């Protein structure tokens, strides 16, 4: 059983007990514990169930590589699934629940799948659920959905109450990893004068050094290593250009020195109102990845039982938390480092059952020391089975070189295993750093000559210490120092005068690789030896994948799900690659690794969102008259980033009644529209007319100052992208109106052509959309309303249709355009934005006796459709050219060129069979469903009913008292009077006749009044 020892534990404060709950049980730990160490202190060795077979699982690791100990933390709004117990700092009142079990952790019905493991091999989803087809929907899918997933998604109604933020920083050197190598790098670079940020994912500095390297008894510059770490941090603290942060994980390295780091600011301080997480967005000149190494498990039969733990994790729990993994633990290894675990346990009075060392070569100094300590060492041994159902009770020892024949049984309650060490090369690899196979240490390590490169072509990622394969203390310190100096020097900081730190040198005996234990294990043992604990991938699964032809490591990974769990294969990948290579009979470096992708460990959604939530998620653009609309209780609709009034309901009036009222008021008397959102782009210069002749299909250069012209803008591939009225302000200046949603991209489109194609033309453009408020005064009484305000002559001759003038209207400097999007007598008045609301209220007062009232976007839409005017986005969808819409009149005949002209000459564009714009009038006066298709006889090549047109706009017209619509129909204009059938999604078939799209005042007398 795992237990808290009477003494020891440099991280915990035994004077400050902490209470927490796990699966409802009240347990005690100490301040400084992690959830994992506190669970082990309470002999909670079983902490979760695996994903596929629901096998009982215990804590394997002590850091972010932990695959098993995932819990649901807290409740309600604070609930979070899949939190690693090993990186969760304990706090008073913490509530955790185990996952993937029902009804309880010790009694799990899902565990029955474990008995079926023989029929659930790798790829069983692909093989099993193919036939019969009908089973997929009704049997397989519901079954899989019920059993799939790890943990539970939070309640969708829950709202995260915590705060998050983003942080931006530029530094010279970013060092990821606060172990001995990273600290040494920071010191070297900092002393040289470089701006340094040193980050460490855990809450403590020093990394593994105080627990490894002779159990922390080695020294640097003759100072014990833990003291040395403290001294270095103290010196770094005196450097104003160096920042050091714990609880900050290097999440991802991206192009050109861009790094994301994830700081867990307040996870350990719940309820104190602290910021929860911070996402750092860092640009760095050089990045030093001093991310350490991760110990590998050994694939032996029964290696997934609770009580089997990495030897390094066992050391951590002992030294940091005073927790022993068991009362009679066994150590299983193929290298020297695990001996330290046995020694440290023995030093604390724990009875070590034996050290089983799979190696047969020369025993080194540690083996000698073990013998001197009176520990039993079994050389060349292996484990062929583990006794116990929910925790380790004993092992069977075999010859590592054999097939698993039992030599003896040893009683033990825990196993500390070490299969060697793999450098944490994730960050090195994220941005393209290459790896090389180290045939001495049996691991992939950074290929230092093939680093990711920056904008200048120089390598900018430098690996240091164990992350670079420098595993001993002496080598790591030396390497860290060199990395810091190099990074600083490459950025122009000279730190050469520093002396190199010297650490204790200890000779180690060579590691001997153990990819499967015992090496000749038959299938019955291989299918009990786990590689990926979280996803239940066994040695036999990877071998099956190899036999079935999944030779690429990327394919084998996806087929078996090896390394695809939340730990992303931190423990399993190298072992899996070795097994795959062995099965395919090729060397490991030829198999290679899977791709390392950010983030290194999962980061919270909250940190990604930062402070951009709620009203800050998408800032809303507001017109100068927005407050007034809100006060009136307008019903808004989103248009681009604006919110425009759709209609202004009165009392409990329905939206459709409000729209009808607004239309009739405008058509019969006068209405007001806030048109401020319309794009307003000024194009100015001697070549302004020339530019507009290229941008618009029509000819703008011949427009007279004081006049307006409707224009169409196409993309180079001929399709209509925007429309609007262009006013010529003077000889050199045009004002181009765009659609509400188009202002920004049309301005960008103009600048693109101006800057990159016709850069020698003398023209400037400026987007003045927000500089002006624009109000449309519309209806037969509009002129009278304007005249009542006084100051300008707006008579029919003074300001004719499609003219504009400027002057003082009611004392406000105004530009008045006599243009109409409704077919009525209509003016659009532009004034400085800050005078918009004043003018708006003056119009309301002046038109009171006409019942003047505002109208919204829906009334605008209906009125333009009654008049047969197209709307970008309704009649166009990126595949429609002006000729389809009967707008040939707006295309200048004699113009040599305009953007889109050549494309409109392509064979498909001049095909007479294109769908063209017509009006649609239902036979019974009802409203056609928008988007409905007109069916034709026969079927298409894929067996669907043939179509010959579709509805692009459809409304009830209060003016005409019937439904009106526009649509694009095959040869439509040639077929006026034909009746078409439009089946609706409601099952009804609507009949409509092809008519002219102009339903209202086709002679145009009203707008010209």
């Amino acid at each position, binding site marked *: 059983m795992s237990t808290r020892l009477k003494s020891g534990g440099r991280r915990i404060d035994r004077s400050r007990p902490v209470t927490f709950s796990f699966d409802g049980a009240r347990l005690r730990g100490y301040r400084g514990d992690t959830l994992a160490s506190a669970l082990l202190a309470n002999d909670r060795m079983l902490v979760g169930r695996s994903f596929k077979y629901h096998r009982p699982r215990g804590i394997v690791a002590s850091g972010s590589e932990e695959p098993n100990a995932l819990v649901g933390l807290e409740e309600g709004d604070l609930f979070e699934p899949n939190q690693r117990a090993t990186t969760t700092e304990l706090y008073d009142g913490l509530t955790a629940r185990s996952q993937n079990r029902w009804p309880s952790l010790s009694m799990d019905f899902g565990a029955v799948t474990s008995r079926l493991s023989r029929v659930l091999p790798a790829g069983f989803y692909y093989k099993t659920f193919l036939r019969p087809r009908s089973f997929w929907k009704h049997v397989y899918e519901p079954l899989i959905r019920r059993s799939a997933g790890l943990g539970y998604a939070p309640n969708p109604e829950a709202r995260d109450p915590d705060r998050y933020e983003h942080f931006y920083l530029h530094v010279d050197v970013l060092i990821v990893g606060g172990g001995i190598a990273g600290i040494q790098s920071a010191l070297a670079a900092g002393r040289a004068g470089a701006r340094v940020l040193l980050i460490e994912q855990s809450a403590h500095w020093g990394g593994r050094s105080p627990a490894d390297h002779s159990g922390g008894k080695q020294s640097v510059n003759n100072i014990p290593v833990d003291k040395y770490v403290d001294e270095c941090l103290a010196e770094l603290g005196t450097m104003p250009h160096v920042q050091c942060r714990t609880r900050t994980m290097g999440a991802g390295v991206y192009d050109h020195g*861009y790094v994301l780091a994830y700081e867990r600011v307040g996870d350990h301080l719940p309820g104190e109102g602290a910021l929860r997480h911070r996402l750092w967005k860092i640009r760095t000149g050089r990045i030093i990845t001093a991310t350490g190494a991760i110990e590998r498990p050994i694939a032996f039969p029964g290696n997934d039982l609770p009580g089997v733990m990495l030897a390094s994790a066992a050391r951590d729990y002992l030294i940091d938390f005073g927790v022993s993994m068991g009362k009679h633990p066994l150590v299983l290894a193929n290298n020297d480092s695990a001996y330290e675990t046995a020694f440290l346990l023995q030093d604390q009075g724990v009875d070590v059952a034996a050290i089983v060392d799979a190696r047969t070569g020369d025993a080194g100094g540690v083996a000698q020391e073990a013998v001197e300590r009176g520990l039993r060492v079994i050389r060349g041994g292996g484990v062929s089975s583990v006794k116990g159902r929910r925790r380790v009770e004993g092992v069977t020892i075999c010859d590592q070189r054999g097939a698993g024949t039992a030599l003896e049984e040893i009683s033990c309650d825990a196993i500390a295993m070490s299969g060697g060490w793999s450098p944490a090369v994730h960050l090195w690899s994220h941005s393209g750093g290459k790896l090389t196979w180290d045939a001495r240490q049996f691991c992939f390590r950074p290929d230092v000559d093939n680093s990711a490169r920056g904008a200048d072509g120089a390598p900018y990622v430098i690996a240091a210490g164990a992350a670079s394969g420098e595993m001993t203390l002496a080598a790591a310190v030396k390497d860290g120092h060199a990395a810091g100096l190099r990074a600083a020097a490459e950025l122009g900081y000279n730190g050469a005068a520093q002396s190199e730190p010297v650490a204790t040198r200890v000779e180690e005996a060579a590691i001997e690789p153990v990819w499967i234990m015992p090496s000749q294990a038959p299938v019955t043992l291989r299918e009990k030896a786990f590689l990926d604990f979280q996803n239940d991938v066994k040695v036999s699964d990877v071998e099956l994948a190899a036999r079935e032809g999944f030779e690429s490591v990327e394919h084998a990974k996806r087929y078996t799900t090896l390394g695809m769990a939340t730990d992303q294969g931190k423990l399993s990948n190298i072992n899996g690659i070795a097994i795959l290579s062995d099965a395919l009979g090729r060397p490991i470096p030829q198999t290679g690794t899977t791709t390392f992708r950010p983030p290194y460990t999962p980061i919270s959604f909250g940190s990604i969102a930062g402070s951009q939530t709620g009203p800050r998620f998408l800032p809303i653009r507001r017109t100068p008259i927005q407050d007034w609309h809100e006060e009136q209780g307008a019903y808004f609709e989103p248009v681009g980033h604006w919110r425009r009034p759709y209609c202004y309901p009165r009392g409990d009036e329905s939206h459709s009644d409000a729209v009808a009222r607004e239309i009739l008021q405008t058509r019969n008397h006068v209405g007001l529209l806030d048109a401020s959102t319309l794009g307003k782009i000024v194009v100015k210069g001697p070549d302004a007319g020339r530019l507009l002749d290229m941008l618009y299909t029509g000819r703008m250069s011949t427009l007279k100052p004081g006049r307006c012209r409707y224009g169409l803008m196409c993309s180079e591939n001929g399709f209509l992208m925007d429309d609007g009225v262009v006013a010529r302000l003077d000889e050199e200046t045009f004002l181009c109106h765009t659609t509400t949603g188009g202002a920004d991209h049309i301005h960008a489109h103009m600048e693109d052509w101006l800057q*990159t194609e016709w850069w020698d033309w003398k023209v400037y453009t400026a987007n003045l959309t927000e500089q002006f408020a624009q109000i449309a005064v519309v209806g037969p009484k509009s002129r009278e309303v304007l005249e009542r305000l006084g100051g300008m002559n707006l008579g029919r001759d003074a300001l004719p249709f499609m003219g504009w003038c400027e002057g003082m209207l009611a004392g406000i400097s105004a530009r008045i355009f006599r243009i109409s999007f409704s077919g009525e007598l209509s003016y659009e008045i532009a004034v400085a934005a800050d005078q918009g609301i004043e003018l708006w209220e003056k119009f309301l007062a002046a038109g009171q006796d006409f019942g003047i009232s505002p109208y919204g976007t829906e009334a605008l839409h209906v009125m333009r459709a009654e008049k047969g005017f197209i709307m970008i986005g309704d009649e166009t969808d990126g595949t429609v050219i002006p000729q389809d819409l009967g707008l040939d009149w707006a295309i200048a005949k004699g113009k040599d060129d305009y953007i889109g002209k050549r*494309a409109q000459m392509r064979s498909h564009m001049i095909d007479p069979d294109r769908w063209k714009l017509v009006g649609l009038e239902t036979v019974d006066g009802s409203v056609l469903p928008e988007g409905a298709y007109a069916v034709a006889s026969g079927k298409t090549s894929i067996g669907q009913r043939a179509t010959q047109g579709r509805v692009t706009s459809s409304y009830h017209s209060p003016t005409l008292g019937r439904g009106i619509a526009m649509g694009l129909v095959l040869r439509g204009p040639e077929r006026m009077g034909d009746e078409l059938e439009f089946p609706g999604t409601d099952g009804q078939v609507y009949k409509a006749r092809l008519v002219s799209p102009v339903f209202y005042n086709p002679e145009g007398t009203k707008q010209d009044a």
Partner: protein
Amino acid sequence: MLILNCPYCGESADETELAPGGEAHLRREGPESQDEAFESYLFHRSNPKGVHFERWRHAFGCGKWFIAARCTATLEVFGTYAAQTSCPPQEIVDKISERRPDRRGASGS
């Protein structure tokens, strides 16, 4: 995430400040062009692994278009220059020849 120097305002701009505009130094084909030439202008783009010339706009900065010469494989940037040119300036061509001596024809087209 790339950093490119805007040759107009001199800022070293983050990719989030920039809008991409595709391959640079295309020659516009107008109404007189043949079908094949126009099709190529409208649709055909090179996608090299190696040296590439791209249009970028400093959209959330000075608003100007410029051209970046960079390696699509290593992301090395050989230089950026104003968009008002139909071929890369000599110093960029020289830099590319120096950094990629095996590459033939260091022009934009």
